[in-house]
């Protein structure tokens, strides 16, 4: 009894950790498995029936699936660029300058993150309609909405990186004959860049993923999350699992490449 107790004691953390990991990744695993499912028999049954390569060979077979993915990527990229540029400028302004209303500004920029999406989405819709854009809802209104809610996340991410930056470094650059422009590009930007990059990645995944706000302001335009939602009413085509698995693999590859690169750099430095 005590032996078993001791065994559990010494393995509790490990077992617990593995269970939590399993819990987190079961959905991804199921999606990956289902991407090989032949559902031609019963479309509205989300259940593994027969193995097939078909879904991977013809991912664009279902109508509008791939076009919705393209739309989502387009909006995601544009929203990322827009939000990252605006948010980075805002972060610099908030960290580097003391001005009246700075504290209020911080709060105002933080609020959208705390606002329920349904509230933000419906107020945006009301705004667009009031502005006379009710008939033109679509790609551009979605983009405007996405840039808007991504800005807060970018500001917060870049701001924390910028606040951790030693102000002496810029003075040292100025002392070493770098003018304002050179100081920014040679010292400030390279040091803040990791923050900007992670803000951009965050913005893209937020935009790509968004359903509620998008759905309220989309008009006839269909993004990937909306496509899945719509398809779910009639039975999800198994190709959706292919897209899902691909997205997961891309994210995984990005993480692995980043980690391998960092490890190689460390090793190269250590070897010198």
């Amino acid at each position: 009894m005590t032996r078993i107790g001791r065994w559990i004691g010494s393995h509790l953390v490990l077992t617990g950790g593995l269970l939590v990991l399993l819990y987190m990744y079961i959905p991804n695993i199921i999606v990956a498995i289902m991407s090989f499912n032949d559902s031609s028999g019963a479309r509205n049954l989300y259940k593994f029936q027969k193995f097939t390569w078909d879904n991977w060979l013809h991912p664009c077979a279902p109508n509008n699936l791939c076009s919705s993915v393209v739309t989502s990527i387009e909006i995601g990229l544009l929203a990322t660029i827009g939000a990252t540029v605006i948010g980075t400028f805002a972060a610099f302004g908030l960290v580097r300058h003391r001005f009246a209303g700075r504290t209020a500004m911080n709060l105002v920029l933080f609020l959208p993150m705390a606002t329920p999406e349904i509230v933000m989405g419906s107020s945006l819709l009301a705004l667009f309609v009031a502005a006379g854009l009710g008939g033109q809802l679509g790609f551009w209104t979605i983009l405007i909405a996405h840039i808007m809610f991504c800005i807060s996340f970018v500001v917060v991410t870049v701001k924390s990186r910028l606040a951790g930056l030693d102000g002496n470094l810029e003075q040292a650059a100025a002392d070493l004959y770098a003018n304002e422009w050179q100081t920014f590009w040679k010292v400030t930007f390279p040091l803040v860049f990791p923050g900007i990059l992670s803000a951009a990645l965050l913005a893209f995944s937020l935009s790509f993923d968004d359903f509620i706000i998008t759905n309220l302001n989309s008009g006839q335009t269909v993004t990937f999350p909306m496509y899945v939602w719509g398809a779910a009413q009639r039975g999800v085509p198994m190709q959706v699992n292919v897209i899902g698995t691909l997205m997961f693999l891309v994210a995984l590859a990005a993480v692995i490449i980043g980690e391998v690169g960092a490890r190689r750099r460390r090793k190269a430095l250590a070897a010198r």
Partner: protein
Amino acid sequence: MSQVSSGTGRDLRLTGLHKTYPNGFTAVHDLDLVVPQGSFFALLGPSGCGKTTTLRMVAGLETPTKGTISIGDTDITETKPYNRPVNTVFQNYALFPHLSIAENVEFGLKRRKVYDSGKQVQEILALTELVEQGPKRPGQLSGGQQQRVALARAIVNRPEVLLLDEPLGALDLKLRRAMQVELKRIQEEVGITFVHVTHDQEEAMSMADTVAVMNQGVIEQMGSPYDLYTNPHTTFVANFLGRSNLIRATVVGREGTGDDAVVKADMHGTVATVKASKVHTDAKDVLLGIRPEKVLIQPEGTAIDAPGSSISGGVVVDASYLGVSTDYTVRMPWGQEIICFEQNTGRRGGLIPVGTTVDVSWRPEFAFLLDASQDVDAGIVEED
């Protein structure tokens, strides 16, 4: 920007330099200062005395409220920091973490598009014994190495003036001593004007040709370490630079002329003489100053081998044996405690026990006379 010009006339000159911050705090008060070209100059003072602000104004990182800064005939008061022939070694080194050591050192040369920057970098890395560290990042170096990188990064540009802001403050005592020697060696080798800001009086004295003691935004006194120590003009300097016994006295007469001129002062019944060149007051109420190691101590009744101002009736209240020396604290008949450092030459063959009645004396030429209207405790610092 330019090479160090041979010959003279490129002195750093601060004229009426004044800095008041927007919150009303005056950090530097109408400072006039000339730092001769090629000298090792120390600005010494407690924290908050304005020494760092002065340095930052010279670097161009702080704008003076009024006054001018010039090097030779060139007025650089309004010049941008990146256009000044001045480089700084920052207190926390401020090395660029994303660049290698070699790239850090090359930074200034690259900005000025110096064509053989690679060669110059290697030379300076050799001078500072950092060749091995060239490809590493600052985060992989020890504190002492980082300090040398900061120094190399500044002097590779051959500035006319090198500013050092507490450059050894972050190092431990042993490394600090080693780096003091190193800094002095490098300064002699490159011949650049060094302006060194520090609160460590030992550091300032061991390295600098000239020391300016700063307090509350003004320079209290400036001179060679020897002059400052042996002939302080204010109680602040007397206490901040080493330690001093300051004894209240009343001037009772002045005698002699020229080099022989002396002032006689009555300290609680004993009349002491002080050389006129070491008298820094016209007042009648004065403080007679004497450095602890100049005070000789001997049990009552035995002969003291120095002619001079002698006082009897002191009682040893504390004796701290420190190996090379012994610190005695002696309570004088009027209640004041004076300190006396005695070298342990072995001549005495032991310590004077606490409670012994002693005579103390000193040679008159070692004493100095200050105005008694000053704060007697000004400049006293806790040992660190």
